[in-house]
């Protein structure tokens, strides 16, 4: 059971995010949709939000031991605070590549339960990719984050750590 406050918080972010995506696409200039500029804008928004969020969330936590510790934090505490659930599966090749699997991604559950609207999914994942990248960046990790969906609302986020 969720309290009214919890439902309101969740719905607020979800709806605001939807408006953000449509806002970016509506105000897109010539060619920006095709050349991916809109996706970049959303990703950059997510990046700045991720930086600020991580600063807030790690204010009272203990120091992280290593990279894996940080990724686990993203999958559990961070994901729970933002999306009210944990990442369902974390896999890594121990060489800097992590795959975060969310079987019921909150930003996609209202969209479809399979393949309908699949071609639009990437627009709704860009912000979250930036969120992860921004959060990691503020923790001292440079990365590239991409997402893929084959059947909604499950999706995978791939994090590639950049060794400097």
């Amino acid at each position, binding site marked *: 059971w969720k309290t009214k406050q919890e439902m309101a918080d969740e719905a607020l972010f979800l709806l605001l995010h939807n408006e953000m995506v449509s806002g970016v696409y509506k105000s897109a200039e010539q060619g920006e949709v095709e050349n991916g500029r809109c996706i970049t804008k959303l990703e950059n928004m997510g990046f*700045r939000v991720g*930086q600020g969020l991580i*600063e807030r969330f*790690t*204010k009272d936590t*203990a*120091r992280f031991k290593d990279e894996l510790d940080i990724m686990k934090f993203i999958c559990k505490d961070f994901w729970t605070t933002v999306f009210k659930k944990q990442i369902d599966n974390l896999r890594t090749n121990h060489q800097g590549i992590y795959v975060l699997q969310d079987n019921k991604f909150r930003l996609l559950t209202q969209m479809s339960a399979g393949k309908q609207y699949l071609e639009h999914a990437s627009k709704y994942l860009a912000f979250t990719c930036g969120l992860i990248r921004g959060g990691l960046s503020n923790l*001292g990790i440079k990365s590239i984050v991409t997402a893929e969906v084959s059947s909604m609302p499950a999706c995978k986020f791939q994090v590639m750590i950049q060794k400097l």
Partner: protein
Amino acid sequence: MAVCVAVIAKENYPLYIRSSPTENELKFHYMVHTSLDVVDEKISAMGKALVDQRELYLGLLYPTEDHKVYGYVTNSKVKFVMVVDSSNTALRDNEIRSMFRKLHSSYTDVMCNPFYNPGDRIQSRAFDSMVTSMMVQVC
């Protein structure tokens, strides 16, 4: 009450530094600069040291003839350095800890300010006045 407060970015350049009294500013800048090495040492020695490695507060970094330098590193690798007058014996460890917590809280607020671009010098007046409240007042 501190005589100098500094916020250093993870790339080791100052985001904010203020000292009081403002003469001898260079001396304090130099002190903060030297303390960065000590901070790095403490962080890398985390595994073997007696210091609780999960804590953000680093404690006393090093003492000089007239001053004591304390450090604190956030999870986002931002360092806070505080210099206090040695003669101020009334200042206890948990007071220093709480000063750092206040700094950390204000820094977090700065991060969430839409007019602040991460990596820039901190120009927030709110942050300024918080720091003023913890520094030695010179009439």
